């Protein structure tokens, strides 16, 4: 069902935990669809120096959280905000079709944390829309 990479990141998820006084925190998903992801960012000089997550969800949700956080660690905020679910999918050697929405959720969780960071920095974030990853409206149009 899941690739070896997925199982690896599910079994030994990287970056699980919280960051006290994080510079950005984002949470997406909801209980109705069964997945919730929360991402904490530590940012210094526009560089993501640390990232942690907590996830309630299936194996794919845990693995995409783990992989997505790995992918943005050490990157600039600019780079991190360009992370796509597709990049997460590829890094995990794919997901079963019904689980692709989890990668969307990971992308959105990071976007939400960045939005929170920018907001705290005093930026105008009103045009940053965060999808909850499970409304079904866009999930199908993403791969």
């Amino acid at each position, binding site marked *: 069902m899941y690739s070896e990479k997925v*199982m690896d990141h*599910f*079994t030994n*998820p990287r970056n*699980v935990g*919280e960051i006290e006084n994080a510079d950005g925190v984002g*949470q997406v998903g909801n*209980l*109705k*669809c*069964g*997945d*919730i*992801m*929360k991402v904490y960012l530590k940012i210094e000089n526009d560089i993501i120096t640390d990232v942690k997550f*907590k*996830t*309630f*969800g*299936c*194996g794919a*949700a*845990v693995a995409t959280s783990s992989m997505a956080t790995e992918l943005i660690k050490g990157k600039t905020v600019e780079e991190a905000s360009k992370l796509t679910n597709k990049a997460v999918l590829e890094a995990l050697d794919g997901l079963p079709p*019904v689980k692709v*929405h989890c990668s969307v959720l990971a992308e959105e969780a990071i976007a939400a944390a960045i939005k929170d960071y920018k907001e705290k920095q005093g930026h105008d974030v009103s045009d940053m829309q965060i999808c909850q990853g*499970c409304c079904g409206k866009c999930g199908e149009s993403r791969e």
Partner: protein
Amino acid sequence: MERKLIYVDHAATTYIKPEVLGAMQPYLTELFGNPSSIYYLGRESKKAIDEARSQTAYFLGAHPQEIYFTGSGTEADNWAIKGVAYANRKKGKHIITSAIEHHAVLEPVEFLRKEGFEVTYLPVDENGLINPAELEKAIRPDTTLVSIMYANNEIGTIQPIKELAEIARKKGVIFHTDAVQAIGNISVNVKDLGIDLLSMSAHKFYGPKGIGCLYVRKGVKLDGFMHGGAQERKKRAGTENVSGIVGMAAALKMAYENLDEYNEHLKKLSKRLIEKVFDRIPYVRLNGDRDNRLPGNVNFSFEFIEGESLLLMLDMKGIQASSGSACTSGSLDPSHVLLAIGLPHEIAHGSLRITFGEKNTEEEVDYIVDCIEETVEKLRQMSPLYEDFIRKNKS
């Protein structure tokens, strides 16, 4: 290479008992004739299915002519529901079922709804039980069929089938029960129960996959389902799965002859599991009725965690268990059964179903409890919901 495997998902499927496979063996090898053929090899196959039919009828309390072999429990359910609905559509187009049926019942019912039938779904209480008074109220002059499962595949709740069937009979409505989870676990006798149709599936009671059976009381109006040759008294065409039929009958025999002992064994394991889990793990609930439940079924909800993750981690420890119905693993929605008994979504998502079988031991139960405890803890540490909960409790 040897994998440690602890199989506790007997409600999903069972292995074939060696004795059952032994009974099938001749029909997988030298006695391969087509039962419709009149020569020796054909007659041997015919004899085998006739005997299997008589044996099946005997244990169910039916007449051999009331037994129809099908390709699965799903086929039996589809046939019963569509077959009765269509054959009796002149009388009316209203059918009654429950909110917690298996998809093999819900989907054919939904199909009928789209074809212009009306459907009433009986609700269940927080233990999954149907109130017979609700059935009484729901029956209308144009009701032709009531289909209520004997025992639920997820939470194990056993319905008061005799009482429900009695209500239907009094009002002249045909009564079907999906007994796929009941047969092999508890004693079922169609005559005692007064039911009209019953579905079963061999792979749930140590028989082979791909074979099921529909009991149809004499006199019940039912359309044929599979049209073709003259097999199964022209009601279910297709060359018979001889080895499957023989295997199902052999498995049924073993089940009925061993029912009390098997029940004791399952109950002991279930009790141990429930007690230990409640002892050691907080924020857990047991789903389903405490008393009216299948002896080998235990269904927990662990708060703050999600079922699939739990299953996968238990799988890595060799434990083969389930979260809700295996058939719905293609879906993202939480189990309709757990929602119907009133669980909120987050708790419905965190369910774990353990269904014991003949080979499970108390040592295995203890190992399972250890693994559950460790895994639940690990997942809770990872859960944003648990974080919130702890934070709230602190403040």
